[in-house]
Structure formats: structure tokens, C-alpha cells
């Protein structure tokens, strides 16, 4: 059984925000809410790193532990989902989450907080309803169509990987092996490796592809 996870390869992420835009557009996420964000460390300095962050669908999710109305559950493929019909918008999950994944739309004119919204791994949400109603509440259900979350599928550098944790861990492991270096080195050859069966790129050609 697949256990769905995200991995973001900080050596490949180019901070294009394509994942953020794709998610926002595909799921028609409410104003003021971003289910996914790109965080950049040491912005503008040599060696800056960017990483795309959303709900990590934790195996032992703190949001699930603190929810006073127990509206969180985990699907059979390991995705943390919440029932918006049960959510009271208290915000405990926001304080508990180390990734800042739960987001709250503004619900009224006086800043009243709406029901929590977060990444669903493009798996829709609990309950059965009309397709339109489910879409309005939770967004697309790509997983049921045998697809992966749109943010990862449209990542241009394939920095963001989604899918069965074992498979994407193997993909990431292969990358690290091909790079043959630690994460402290930056550049094209580090991110994408040297051509297999070919010679290493000549000095000075790095980054010119």
C-alpha cells in the first residue's frame, strides 16, 4: 500500500513558485490562503536555498492530536484529511503544525475566521456530495483518477516529488548518488549530475545549459 508523501529537493528548487500558482489555480483556493508556499533561506546571498512547503501529511500528525472536534483523519494511502463540516475554525491546528500548513480564510467583514483549509494531496475530502460541492470545499481529486498532486506534477525542475514515500525516497537517493557530493555544493552538475556514460562537463560550462 502506497503511503503518500512530498519531498522537496532544495538543490533543484529555483523559487519559481509554479507549485504555488498551480495549486492555487487548480483548487480555486480562497483569497488569502496558500496551501503551498516557497520558503527561501539566505535570500539574495550566495548559497541561498528554496524549499516548497505544504502539509507534509505527517505519520503522527500534531494537528490531528490537538483538534478539539476530531475532524482530522488519515486516508488509506496516508493522506491527512479534515472534514470541513466538523471544523469550528478554532486555529489549534495552526499552532500545532510545524509547517504552518493550516490556513484560515476570512469569513466575515470583521475578520472572522473561516474553516481551516490545507493541502489535501489533491485527494478531495471526506464525505460524499455532488462533485461541485466537494470541489468547492476541498478542491480537485486527482488521486482518484490515478494522478499525483498538480504542484509536483508540474514542477519544472522536478524539485518537488510526490507519491509513494518509498518510491520518491529512492528517486531522491539516486539523485544524491549521481551528484556524488554533499548538499553543500551548488550548481547544475550538483543538481542534475554528469551525463551517465559520458565525460564530466568541461570546466566553466556549468550553468550554461
Amino acid at each position: 500500500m502506497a503511503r503518500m508523501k512530498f519531498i522537496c529537493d532544495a538543490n533543484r528548487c529555483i523559487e519559481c513558485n509554479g507549485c504555488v500558482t498551480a495549486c492555487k489555480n487548480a483548487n480555486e483556493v480562497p483569497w488569502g490562503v496558500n496551501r503551498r508556499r516557497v520558503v527561501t533561506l539566505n535570500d539574495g546571498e550566495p548559497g541561498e536555498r528554496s524549499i516548497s512547503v505544504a502539509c507534509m501529511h505527517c505519520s503522527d500528525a500534531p494537528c490531528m492530536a490537538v483538534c478539539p472536534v476530531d475532524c482530522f483523519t488519515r486516508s488509506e494511502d496516508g493522506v491527512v484529511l479534515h472534514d470541513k463540516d466538523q471544523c469550528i475554525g478554532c486555529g489549534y491546528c495552526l499552532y500545532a503544525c510545524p509547517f504552518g500548513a493550516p490556513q484560515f480564510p476570512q469569513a466575515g467583514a470583521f475578520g472572522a475566521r473561516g474553516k481551516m483549509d490545507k493541502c489535501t494531496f489533491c485527494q478531495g475530502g471526506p464525505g460524499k456530495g455532488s462533485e461541485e460541492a466537494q470541489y468547492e470545499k476541498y478542491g480537485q481529486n486527482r488521486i482518484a483518477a490515478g494522478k499525483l498532486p498538480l504542484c509536483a506534477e508540474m514542477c519544472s525542475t522536478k524539485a518537488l516529488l510526490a507519491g509513494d514515500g518509498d518510491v520518491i525516497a529512492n528517486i531522491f537517493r539516486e539523485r544524491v548518488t549521481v551528484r556524488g557530493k554533499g548538499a553543500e555544493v551548488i550548481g547544475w552538475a550538483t543538481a542534475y549530475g554528469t551525463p551517465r556514460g559520458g565525460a564530466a562537463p568541461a570546466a566553466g560550462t556549468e550553468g550554461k545549459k
Partner: protein
Amino acid sequence: MMSVPRTLGAVVAALLFAVGLSACEEKKVTRYEAGKYSGAPVTSPWDSPQYGGKQAEWEAAVQARTQGQNDYTRIPAK
């Protein structure tokens, strides 16, 4: 045979001892237990019109799609 005041004293001393011991009781620990999910049931991803409950078929499709993210296998070595 003990006199009445001595018996009374012994009883009081025993009571004080018992009360004193109770102060050494371990601090109560609140045990948090996971709550029971209160929302609507989650449909399995393979229970969709496209896969009609065929779990193996769905898993194979998702595995293939996940593996498709590996650019080292998508672009064969020269």
C-alpha cells in the same frame, strides 16, 4: 494493658502517619488519548468511477506515475 490516653495517642499517631504518607502520593498524570474521528467517512481513492474499486490497478497507475518523476529513467543515458 494500655491506658485509654495512650491508646488514643497511638490511634492519632497512626492517623497522622497515614495522612503524612498520602502526601507522598505520585503526582497524577493526565493521559491523552487520541479522539475518535467525528467527520464523514473517507472514500478510498480506488473507489472512483475510473477504477471502480480495483485497488491493484489504481496502485499500479500511481506507482508508474510516481516513477515518471525520475528524470534519470525518463531520459535514457547516452
